[in-house]
């Protein structure tokens, strides 16, 4: 197992390098650089100023030279550089926004599991029942909603019409340190994310319960005279949790990648929002940092999922 993990990690390095090169190349291809969006009047700056900015950041050099400097900075100095927008260290900018996104996506994940698991288990145990069909149908309805649309509808309904929740942002004026105020602001975005995504989890759970309940060793347990409930709890459960564990690992990148459409509509200053504004501002260092972070998390997430898979299912062994 250990050697498997080590091999995967080592093998991830060329992958990450590849991602970094291609990302940088793509960004450099995009028309207009960071200088194009500067200017206090939003109308751009003079060509002289633009030329100066480009020279300052080395943007007048070919993209692979720029990329090389970025890589050198990362490998030799462990630094992700400074943002083109405000010259602050990129690390600082990202870590400022990270807790917000992690909190929001984390809560959404939690809510998703709370909704999806019990429903999935019950539906799987009572396959073909009305509940089973209805829960899938409801799940699909929400799945079919574009998340930005659902967000707008939730805002129009619960924030504007009923005024039960705030329509945007993370905190009310003067209440930035109040955790309850924060939670109150996060209710709608978290619900939006959970609603559109719970159906996948629910159905994975359902199908794995079904499979577990019908597999050979369950039949053995049944034939031994164990009650249906015992069968479910003692044997089906362990296996049934498998896909969930896998999916959790695969969801790791979402904690950073963030739900940017939701952050955009609800004006929540998280990593997704930062990604958006960095794209529009052509802030290459910040974008590279976020991309690489997401890539690292995908690698780690995949690895975690595979490892957890092996732990939970004793039949799987990695050479």
């Amino acid at each position: 197992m250990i050697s498997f993990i080590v091999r995967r990690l080592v093998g991830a390095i060329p992958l990450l390098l590849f991602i970094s090169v291609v990302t940088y190349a793509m960004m450099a291809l995009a028309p207009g650089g960071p200088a194009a969006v500067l200017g206090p009047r939003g109308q751009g700056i003079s060509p002289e100023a633009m030329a100066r900015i480009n020279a300052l950041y080395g943007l007048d050099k070919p993209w692979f030279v720029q990329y090389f400097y970025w890589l050198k900075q990362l490998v030799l100095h462990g630094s992700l550089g400074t943002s083109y927008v405000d010259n602050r260290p990129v690390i600082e900018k990202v870590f400022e926004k990270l807790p917000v996104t992690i909190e929001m996506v984390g809560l959404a994940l939690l809510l998703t599991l709370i909704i999806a698991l019990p429903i999935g288990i019950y539906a799987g145990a009572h396959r073909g029942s009305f509940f089973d069909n209805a829960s899938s149908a409801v799940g699909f309805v929400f799945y079919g909603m574009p998340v930005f649309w659902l967000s707008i509808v939730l805002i129009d309904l619960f924030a504007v019409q009923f005024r039960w929740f705030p329509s945007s942002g993370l905190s009310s004026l003067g209440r930035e340190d109040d955790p309850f105020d924060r939670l109150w602001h996060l209710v709608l975005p978290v619900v939006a994310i959970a609603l559109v995504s719970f159906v996948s989890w629910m159905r994975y759970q359902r199908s794995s319960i079904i499979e577990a309940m019908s597999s050979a060793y369950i039949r053995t347990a049944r034939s031994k005279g164990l009650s249906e409930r015992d069968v479910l709890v003692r044997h089906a459960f362990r296996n049934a949790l498998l896909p969930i564990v896998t999916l959790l690992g695969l969801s790791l990148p979402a904690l950073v990648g963030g739900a940017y459409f939701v952050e955009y509509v609800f004006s929540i200053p998280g990593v997704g929002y930062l990604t958006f504004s960095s794209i529009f501002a052509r802030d290459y260092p910040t974008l590279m940092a976020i991309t690489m972070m997401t890539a690292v998390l995908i690698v780690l997430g995949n690895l975690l999922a595979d490892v957890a898979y092996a732990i939970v299912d004793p039949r799987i062994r990695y050479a």
Partner: protein
Amino acid sequence: MRGSPSWRRLAACVLAAGTLALGGCAAGADSHHDPNTLVELVRTDGATMNPMFAETVEDASVYDQLLFDGLSYVGADYLPHPRLATSWSASADGLHWTVDLRRDVRWSDGVPFTSKDVVFSYRLFLDPKSGYLDVGDIKYINRVTADGPYRVHFDLAYPSAVFTLNALGENLVPEHVLGKIAPDRQRFSSFGEHPVGTGPYVLQNWQHDSETLFVRNPYAWRRPKIARIDVRIIFNDQSEMEALANGSADLIDDLSLTQYLQLQHIAPQIKLMTFASLYLDVVEFNLDRPGLSDVAVRQAMMYGYDRKALVDGLYDGKVAVTNDLIVSALKHWYDPNVPQYPYDPAKARAILDAAGWKVGPDGIRSNGRTRLSFELMLNQGSSIITDEMLTFAEDMHDVGIDVRLRQLDFASLVSRSFKGNYDMTANGRGGAVDPDLTTILASSQIPPNGSNTTHYRDAIVDRDLKLGLTTLNDAKRREYYDQMQVELSKTLPILPQRGRFSALAYASRLVLNPKTTLQSPLLYFNVEDWALTP
């Protein structure tokens, strides 16, 4: 749900429910009402407090005006007045200026302000390695020298009528703080997070994208009445209005039209002020493109575009159709007598017919070589502008011109404009208080030399721009700019649509004099005179 509301609040809620869902109902939000703190709401945060690199609207309009001073400032009459300077004078040929400085000014760390700071600032700004953004305003300064601690001399490459307004208006930076840093490292210094200026306020605390707190500068020579200014970032129009309505905030300086319309229904504790905007929205042409190079086509577009219907429909009549590139807010320079272009599609068709553009079987005109079919690029993200441009495209179709829309992000727009890779683009212009339009209209400024992205070449306008810029006599300047406006109106490199909407809203406890209040971005020029009634 927050705690249960008091009955009085509930009754107020019921009343307010009859209006546009505003009112003091935002559950639980109380008035952040320190009598000495002005709470202001903005929609985006600034990027840096270093005035050399002011990049966003917030940087330049709010933060820098609170923290820094220039030698001159723009007053309520839109003219330059001395600020850190006490007086200035020019030589007869306009090439040499002498500026006398105030003697009672200190930086926020107590160090006295002297001519050393002025010389250092301008030399740094002019240094190509510093990456100073506003270099366009000062590049004709050849030399800056000190003459004793309270006098500075400027030598110019050519006389400029906007020298006192633009060049002397640059925010100055302290030599004793930034002098140790090499020019190419200026952009990376911590000055952007820890600024030191001569302005009425200093930065106390900055939580990015959340809140910025300014307090009175202990050494301020312009001592403000209000002790603290708290700038909050609220991304969303609705939340901004709610905060203002329930008393948690005191000022929104850049009100959108819909906010304005909704706030009008609020009880008199909210005051509103509208201005003739300094900005206008336009459609720009790439004059090198076949079809667009024909002035008849452009004039036909003006006649064929029903701007009034849009202004009435989408803007409730609260902005004005304009035919000038010089906005009506600049009373000193605005000429209402330029040729108007009332909506007249029949006339548009006649002009096109006369110029040889015949309607083809698909309804689009062509002169045999060129078909009048163009792509109009615009910024994605504003649905109102998109709807306006859609209506424009419809109007154009009615007179036989095909206009296709293309939404792009801002950086791509700017890039394509400068590369000349476009037909037409929706754009915003204005913002300056001086009528000089050299950078966008002079033929010498065609990219890569300048920002004349329409590639306009007109001898009369070139001449008027040159004379207008280098003549120091206002009356003569007025003549040149009047001629220029007439010529611009005839040749139409840019199609003016309408002014923007400009308004601010504030709580009644904030005392603002309508006669001496300027619109954003110039609002804070007299912030030291503002007061909060208890």
